[in-house]
């Protein structure tokens, strides 16, 4: 009854929500949250496909995405800390010094 398309639609909706969050947020920390949302949506999709095709590849992929997300968060937050120490603010609009 619940087919693959259901899961994929849910994943798509969550992905769009994450996309909206990325576009909307001005605070860098909140931007990271929205990125996490997008990653999780993709994980759902992979797991669903893996279930409906009886293939373990999807789950493997999801694993590695989780691993990458972890390391990304570590490094990203470190950079955020250095940025905060330097500029005193985490707002995107204050950090637009590479204006061309």
């Amino acid at each position, binding site marked *: 009854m619940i087919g693959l398309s259901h899961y994929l639609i849910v994943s798509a909706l969550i992905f769009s929500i994450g996309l909206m969050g*990325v*576009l909307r*947020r001005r605070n*860098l920390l909140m931007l990271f949250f929205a990125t996490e949302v997008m990653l999780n949506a993709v994980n759902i999709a992979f797991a669903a496909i893996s279930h409906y095709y009886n293939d373990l590849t999807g789950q493997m992929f999801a694993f590695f995405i989780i691993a990458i997300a972890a390391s990304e968060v570590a490094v990203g937050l470190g950079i955020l800390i250095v940025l905060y120490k330097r500029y005193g603010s985490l707002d*995107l*609009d204050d950090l637009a010094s590479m*204006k*061309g």
Partner: protein
Amino acid sequence: MMENLVYIALFAPFASSMFAALFGMSPRQTFVGIVASLLLFTSFLASATLAFYVATTGMGIHVTMMDWISAGNLHIPFGFVVDQVSVTMMTVVTLVSTVVHIYSIGYMDHDKSFNRFFSYLSAFVFSMMILVMSDNFAGLFIGWEGVGVCSWLLIGFWYHKKDVSREENPSISPSWAANEAFIMNRIADLGMLVGLFIVYWNVGSLQYDVVFAELPNLSGSVLNAAAIALFIGAMGKSAQFPLHTWLTDAMEGPTPVSALIHAATMVTAGVFLVIRANPLFSMTPEVSYFIAALGTFVAFFAASMALVNRDLKRIIAFSTLSQLGYMFAAAGLGAYWIALFHLAAHAFFKALLFLGAGNVMHAMHDELDIFKMGGLKKAMKWTYIYMGVASLALAGIPFFAGFFSKDAIIETAFNEGTIVLWAILVITAGMTAFYSFRQVFLTFEGDERYKAFGIHPHEMYKYVLIAMSPLAILAVIAGFFQGSYEHFVTKLLPEYHMSEHTHHLALLLGLVVLIFAVGGIVLAYKKYYKGLKRDEQVENSFIYKVLANQYYIPKFYEMVITKPYAMLSEIFWKDIDMKIVDATVDGIAKFLYKSGDSSRKMQTGNLSNYLNWMAVGSVLLLVVAVISAMFV
């Protein structure tokens, strides 16, 4: 040995031109002229030797220098043939050129572009030699274009003279006259090219021997088309009606140029073409008749305009035009060797006339109006003798060169049964005599009108006069060689004999022409020997005005062709080229620049903006994917 002579004759003028070109920018150096004249004399000696060889052995020399175009089936070599026809032209051209070069040393001695002049002059002789010596139509065309270019360079030699209105100077300016000459030649060259294409398309080769052998196999319409097209080319070069106005305007160039180019060589290239291609023209009798008729018309037409003209050189130019008409008449009627003979004889005495006119101009400080001259025979005895001799030859007085050649042409017209042409030619002979001697008398006899303008004439340098003497001698004696010349050249050209009927009447015919000629001289004598008596009533009469304005043809060309074409060009330039083509190109450039400039604003440095753009791009791709999937 003979091949070497061919190359010497051909390339000596080229070497002279290159040598003089080295000094083109320097102030005048006399030795440039001397070296040029010596090289031309070398060319003349080579040509004369070749002529002697051809005359004694009766064989032509054919050399192929190198391959020029070899593409697929098209094979055009640089080849040169020295046969009776081309060797005649070679000798005439080189002789007159040598005399003109020596003359120029004296004539141009006050000109600061002295070296450049010799470079151009020798380049012209080189092109003319290519034209007459080539053994295929393509080489002829190269020489054809070369003489056109050199003529442009030489007519416009004093290019810095500004344009003036047509009333002040009918030729407006040397640059204008040069352009007119070149453009008219180019118009005719289109016809020539079409003729070449027709020949090549139907025969497959442009070599003379191949083409002439193939001619009997071609259809009548092809032959007619080729003949007409080639004759159009000849019309431009030899200034036949309606492409004749450039010849008189070409008098803006220095006088040696007029003597060489517009008397002896370039304008005769058209006649040379017809003579060279005589197998073609023999097979198209209608075209040939048209050529003869046009030639006769031009002879009369030009002579009529010379009757009232006041410009010294222009009168002589008109007489050149008239005599060219005679040559075409002869060629059109099938008497090719007679046309060639007249070409050679005419070259001698016409060049002499021009050079004499140059002497007068040099003495009168470039004054050309014969109404302002008079009585110059006291100051310029030798020039008077030369011009008198040349005019006697031109008028066709017995035992001078012109008598034999012109009489032969007039007899041909009678022989062919074209009585109308004969009558017109006879009348023209009378007119020729009249205007030649009108010019001589007004310049040299009578009252000395020049004194009123404060001019002190003096004779030309001795060496120049000595250089002109060969021409004078030839103008006198050339006629006596008619018999041997006929024997010599009809080895190549078709023979032409008068019929029995004409033979009987020969004496009578000659007498008729003589009466007209002498009558013309007597009329001129009566009117002008004592001096100029201007007649207001005659000068304001309609006929006089029409003739003096050259039948208003230049004005007609200006109104109907030049001005509308100039307007059209301006429209094309301002409206189409600048507004459309340029605008498009500039528009593309501006568009690219502006789009780059505005795209630069995309770099805000703001991360959120970049993420926005990323999202826009990916959403766009998604939408495209969905839409394309829906329609597949």
